[in-house]
């Protein structure tokens, strides 16, 4: 069989594998089930009134994740994400309350998140950048993100909180870029930690509760945030122009920590996207928390064998690389 025949054969196999026959909606039967339901729909707008006792049942919030990207000019970079939730009044016995999650996150000193990011050019969907990443968050030390392509470390971004210093390592090229991390930048980064994002997203109530599910073997409560705009102010627009985005976050019902976060985001043209409109899909899973992180991970000294570059040099390198 040639390639085309192979593809057709595979399509046929998949089609057969998922063929469940014709289904048809029985409107009369469904209306009958509806009539048997004890509850009528809530009037529109009811949800906005969280003070009503019957609304004490729920709440939510949500959150999300991260963004990172950067390559280029300052080449690369950034960040990450997390989550949110919320409930001003309380929860049902089975629900996850934002306040509890917030308190729980506040107890966490370190987190390791593992995930993937896929960036697709809006203008040319064939331009796709995909990589795996590992984020290390330390309340004391700062933030580190490693990017991998096919298990090879491509970049490391370090934001050292104590030294107020940032370092970008472009590993294949043995190049690095050093940049200061002023107080404002660190505060922005702090806002991107899970607890910071919870605070930010407390201001947003555009979330949907997704119910419970077993996520990666853990029982979790899901939330969908339909508008990530509240995150837009976290990073200068010149660096990240978040035009729209949605996110889902799953919070472990026992640990009360976000265990999986996913986001679909449309980014406008900035230096971080090499001046392209870009769609980004990011996924992050909580791997470990409250584990000891090697302090050397946050070391912003130039590693042996590396050449220090300026941002303008990096831009030229990317330009030459096409």
């Amino acid at each position, binding site marked *: 069989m040639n390639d085309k025949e192979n593809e057709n054969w595979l399509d046929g*196999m998949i089609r057969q594998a998922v063929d*469940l026959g014709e289904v048809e909606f029985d409107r009369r039967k469904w209306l009958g089930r509806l009539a048997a339901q004890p509850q009528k729909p809530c009037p529109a707008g009811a949800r906005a009134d969280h003070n009503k006792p019957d609304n004490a049942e729920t709440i939510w919030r949500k959150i999300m994740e991260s963004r990172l990207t950067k390559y280029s000019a300052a080449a690369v970079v950034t960040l990450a994400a997390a989550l949110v939730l919320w409930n001003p009044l309380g929860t049902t016995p089975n629900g996850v309350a934002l306040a509890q999650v917030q308190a729980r996150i506040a107890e966490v000193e370190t987190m390791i998140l593992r995930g993937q990011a896929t960036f697709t050019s809006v203008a040319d969907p064939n331009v796709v950048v995909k990589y795996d990443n590992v984020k290390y968050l330390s309340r004391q030390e700062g933030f580190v993100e490693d990017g991998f392509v096919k298990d090879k470390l491509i970049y490391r971004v370090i934001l050292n909180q104590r030294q107020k210093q940032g370092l970008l390592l472009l590993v294949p090229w043995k190049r690095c870029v050093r940049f200061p991390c002023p107080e404002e930048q660190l505060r922005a980064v702090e806002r991107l930690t899970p607890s910071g994002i919870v605070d930010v997203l407390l201001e947003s109530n555009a979330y949907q509760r997704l119910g419970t599910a077993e996520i990666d073997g853990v029982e979790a409560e899901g939330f969908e945030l339909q508008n990530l705009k509240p995150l837009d102010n976290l990073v200068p627009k010149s660096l990240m122009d978040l035009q729209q985005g949605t996110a889902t976050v799953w919070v472990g019902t026992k640990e009360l920590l976000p265990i999986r976060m996913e986001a679909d985001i449309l980014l406008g043209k900035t230096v971080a996207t090499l001046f392209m409109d870009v769609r980004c899909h990011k996924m992050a899973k909580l791997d470990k928390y409250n584990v000891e992180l090697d302090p050397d991970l946050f070391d912003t000294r130039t590693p042996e064998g590396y050449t220090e570059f300026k941002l303008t040099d990096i831009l030229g390198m990317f330009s030459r690389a096409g």
Partner: protein
Amino acid sequence: MTENRVTNLVAAARKGDAESFSRLCEQHYPALVAIAYSQLADRGLAEDAAQEALLVAYRDIARLKDPGRFLPWLAAICRNTAIDMARARIRERYAQVEDCSPVADLCHHENDVVAAVREIIFGLDPEVKDIILLRYYNEMTYRQIAELLGMSEESVNGKLRRARNTIRQELQRRASMETEP
């Protein structure tokens, strides 16, 4: 159904118009069954889950902030309803039999390759399973899938392409294992 038409029906349903909501149901029911099936691997249960999801959606539709996001919202409710049912089903099966795979009982009388493909598909991520079902069973376009699942067409395309590669490679791996001495 045009976007305006959907928006109008959603608006009417938010005011308690069950008839309008049932028209929305009619249009999207097959896709919801597919999404539920990707979790349950059982058509009967999938139909139950889809209908239950529609009841939940009708009850909660006033909570939908953005009517333009009705489809992804509905899909998420259906998926979670199915997940809850799948969990309950697994718990029941654990109590009854050793093998609780939702797929195992479906494979007995089928062509081996089709059964293998189904097994591989049901081992994929839930979202990817949804996309495969919507593409190959419902024969939806990438755009329709993207609207329903609330993602970009590029994302649908990428996930589907990777899923097909995964299926192909896994089939090849299994075939090579069978031919090994």
